[in-house]
């Protein structure tokens, strides 16, 4: 039988499959951060259970950590307690934790690949919806709730319903200024935030093979924004080159053995998917979201839609309420939208390649009057690398703030946030109401688009620079 990559990984991880019950699948890697784990540890303690395989876990602190003045104690007492609880829990259970002071610290989905902790063919979970990021390595990686975090710690397994498969094919090459972020937004725009519900997406096609590992991570990261359980990309030479030599990657004979397995993973020629969506790489323009859902997105050279242009009543209503929240008029040119703040960072676009793209555009420019621009590297390693390349200088000379790593304004839990009514160009992944601060208005874009907006004070079509 011809199988898709998802089916191969699924079959290899089935532990129990009984009639009328949810199949039980095995979990190879379990990632953790401070926000969604404390109640799971508490549950474990109450039931007197132990962490079954401490080696399967890698933990970090990212959501609540300050991106300035790291040496000072955390001002918010509740955040402080959460950070301390994380440290205690990891210590008590013998888990590998990259705490705030650790040179490996950073956003969980940035840190994990840096150390080669996830490999092709693994099942990877984390109490975080953007776990899908690791699908870039050909691993089945998905977000779970806190009860499931507890379940995985106790049993190393998870009851799961098998997903359907959706092949998203990006044909041909991308146009010069389009990035993985633009692919992700264009797909969400096309199929909607519920379009992938019940599916695992496999991304394929020339434009996908052409993406760097960083780009693949950006794309898979946002599979969840299209409603999918996970995103997957078949491993290839780029994947192996990336992993080779990293701390947790197999070495010597084990590397050969692993490679043999990894090379067997890609979907069989002619394997059937439950659904297929195709896009033309060349037609994907740089994207800007205009609403309060990632599916409310448009090409930079177009206009904010008129609610009446939607046939569907629900979409019409969603459009008009989004425009009201975003304080935008229908038919406004996207490039006429002015911004107050620019944020480059997050597990979507906080990697070295993203900072390079931003610095390239920012070089020799100045942040526009009245605009604040902040760059938050995804991890200390990204920060270090960027500083070695002089990207921090380019950005600070252009008037940007250069911060310590963390989730920061992606979800604004650590005190970095928009004030009511402020408008941002952000490289993060969600533009929900209040995501970046109550009353804040978020436009999602790629790093280069964000940097161009910082200098102009409004969105610009980077193809015309």
């Amino acid at each position, binding site marked *: 039988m011809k199988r898709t990559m998802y089916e191969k990984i699924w079959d290899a991880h089935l532990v129990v499959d009984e009639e009328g019950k949810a199949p039980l699948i095995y979990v190879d890697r379990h990632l953790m951060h401070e926000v969604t784990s404390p109640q799971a540890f508490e549950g474990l303690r109450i039931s007197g259970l132990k962490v079954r395989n401490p080696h399967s876990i890698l933990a970090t602190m990212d959501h609540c950590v300050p991106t300035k003045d790291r040496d000072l104690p955390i001002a918010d007492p509740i955040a402080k307690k959460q950070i301390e609880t994380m440290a205690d829990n990891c210590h008590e259970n013998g888990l590998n934790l990259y705490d705030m002071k650790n040179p490996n610290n950073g956003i969980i989905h940035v840190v994990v690949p840096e150390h080669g902790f996830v490999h092709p063919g693994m099942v990877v979970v984390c109490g975080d919806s953007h776990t899908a990021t690791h699908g870039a390595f050909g691993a089945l990686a998905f977000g779970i709730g806190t009860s499931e975090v507890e379940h995985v710690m106790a049993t190393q397994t998870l009851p799961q319903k098998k997903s359907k498969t959706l092949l998203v094919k990006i044909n041909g090459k991308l146009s010069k200024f389009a990035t993985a972020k633009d692919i992700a937004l264009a797909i969400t725009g096309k199929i909607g*935030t519920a379009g992938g519900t019940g599916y695992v997406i496999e991304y394929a096609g020339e434009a996908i093979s052409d993406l760097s590992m960083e780009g693949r991570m950006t794309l898979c990261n946002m599979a969840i924004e299209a409603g999918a359980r996970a995103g997957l990309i078949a491993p290839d030479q780029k994947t192996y080159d990336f992993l080779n030599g990293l701390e947790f990657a197999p070495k010597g004979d084990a590397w050969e053995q692993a490679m043999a397995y990894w090379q067997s993973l890609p979907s069989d020629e002619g394997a059937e998917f439950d659904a297929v969506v195709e896009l033309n790489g060349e037609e994907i323009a740089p994207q800007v979201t205009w609403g309060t859902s990632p599916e409310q997105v448009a090409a930079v050279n177009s206009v904010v839609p008129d609610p009446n242009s939607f046939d569907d009543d629900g979409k019409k209503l969603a459009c008009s309420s989004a425009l009201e929240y975003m304080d935008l008029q229908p038919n406004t040119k996207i490039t006429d939208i002015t911004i107050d703040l620019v944020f480059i960072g997050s597990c979507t676009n906080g990697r070295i390649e993203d900072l390079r793209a931003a610095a390239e555009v920012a070089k020799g420019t100045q942040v526009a009057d009245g605009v604040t621009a902040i760059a938050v590297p995804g991890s200390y390693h990204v920060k270090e690398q960027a500083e070695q390349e002089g990207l921090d200088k380019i950005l600070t000379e252009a008037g940007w703030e250069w911060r310590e790593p963390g989730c920061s304004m992606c979800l604004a*839990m650590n005190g970095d946030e928009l004030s009511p009514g402020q408008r941002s160009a952000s490289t993060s992944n969600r533009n929900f109401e209040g995501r970046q601060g109550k009353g804040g208005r978020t436009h999602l874009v790629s790093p280069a688009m964000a940097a161009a907006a910082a200098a102009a004070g409004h969105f610009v079509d980077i193809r015309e620079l």
Partner: protein
Amino acid sequence: MQPYTKHNSIAALMNRSNVDTDQIIPKQFLKKVERSGFGAHLFHDWRFNADGGDNPEFELNKAVFKDAKILVVGDNFGCGSSREHAPWAIADYGFNTIISTSYADIFYNNCFKNGILPIIAAQHQLDALMEEITGNEGVSFEIDLEQQTITTPGGNGFSFELDAFRKENLLAGLDDIGLTLKHEDKISQYEEMHKQNFPWLWT
């Protein structure tokens, strides 16, 4: 977890689609390390005015919905983050049943871990329920999980689909970990095989 029993309760209406978990429980409340007390912050940014008082415009602040156990909402409810704080807040507030046409995957799973029944209705069924509530605010629906039926005074009831294992666990109030650990021998067997096939994962 409390077993889910047959009940007849007030159904509250929130006619909004794509309600995301950031709205269900805004992030400023995610810093707590306990599981309880999140109901006070459910839909916080919609529910309260800047001065902390109730926002009279917000649907759930209507007095008739005060004791509602059933929440009737638009499509794609619970999209966004994986935070289980969302179902914790919903359950803590007093809801044990949600009716919509669709839910985000992770949210849907999380409901069952917290004694919440998320019922999937067809669009016309949901529309009819919404209309019935609008025309008769404070109306009660009967939810019978055993029979998988909703009954309403306006005759808009229907039967709904649900995975058998999810139903059983909800009815019995069973906890998943206990059930899984019954398979301890199979998990150990799998791990032995895993160690042989993927030795590099164990070093």
